[in-house]
């Protein structure tokens, strides 16, 4: 991949990837660090991919692995689910800006990632399973439960299915 191709890929994928990382880890500074690391890993791996979609999926998979490593490292310090991150650089506005953000922060990181990949990125069950290191057969039921939890959290903030249905 040459520099022009990389810039093209970056322009197309950086914002969605950062949105995924921000919503998964709740910290803009950390999300930017992970974003850079994801691109660096992709470039260092020499991965070419068949097309932009293939490269995008690969990037999201790297980003998901980075998130998993981050949460794993964080776990010994606190047994709780990393929600509203109190570390320096945390952009609280990202959570407060939308009810969706705060509803998402009530979920486990894996649920957030699964929901985002499925309903924002439109990833297939197979792609989600690959990214999260899970069995494809388990995704359907896990996604269903994660969705129920998010819907419940959204409803507790006053958002109802009837209000959203146009």
């Amino acid at each position, binding site marked *: 991949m040459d520099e022009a191709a990389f810039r093209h890929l970056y322009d197309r994928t*950086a914002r969605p990837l950062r*949105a995924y990382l921000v919503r998964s880890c709740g910290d*803009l500074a950390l999300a930017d660090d992970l974003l850079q690391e994801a691109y660096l890993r992709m*470039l260092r791996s020499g991965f070419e991919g068949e097309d932009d979609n293939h490269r995008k999926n690969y990037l999201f998979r790297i980003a998901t692995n980075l998130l998993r490593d981050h949460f794993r490292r964080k776990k010994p310090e606190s047994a709780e689910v990393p929600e509203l991150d109190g570390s320096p650089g945390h952009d609280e506005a990202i959570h407060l800006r939308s009810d969706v953000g705060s509803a998402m922060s009530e979920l486990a990181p894996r649920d957030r990632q699964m929901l985002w990949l499925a309903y924002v990125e439109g990833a297939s069950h197979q792609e989600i399973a690959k990214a999260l290191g899970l069995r494809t057969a388990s995704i359907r039921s896990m996604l269903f439960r994660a969705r129920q939890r998010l819907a419940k959290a959204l409803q507790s903030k006053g958002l109802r299915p*009837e209000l*959203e*249905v146009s």
Partner: protein
Amino acid sequence: MSTHPCPYEEAVARAARGGDWSPELEAHRDGCLTCAELTLVVAALAADAEELAGLDAPLPDPGALWLRARLATRERDFQRATRAIVWVQRATVAAVLAVGIAFAPGLWGLVSGLFSGLDLSFSTPDLPRAAGSPLLVMIVSILVLGGLALWELTITQEN
């Protein structure tokens, strides 16, 4: 109203993401709690994604990322290239040691035979006594060269 997984989920998710609702699907969604919840979740996440994608904070510079990746690749290539040299150095040291150990008794006899025929009794009053001994010069040279080889090997491994 159902609260269990619904066979229309995938179609509803696609429609909710793309906004392309058929009248049948819309009618189904209105009567199925699972699909209504799904629509809520998809719409909420889409709005959230749009909001996050429009964040004012600038993205990291792709040019800097590209340069960092190039540097890392060069570093890795350098490591790969020098790995072969390090292995050759190790193999050479091991071979020399092995030959040295195998032939030590014979070599010692050869060296002592060579030196027994030399006249080492000449006097060099201006030089220290030890400087006149070829055996000592040889031993010191081997020690110095051996030390340099080991030092070189260590430095290469550290890099």
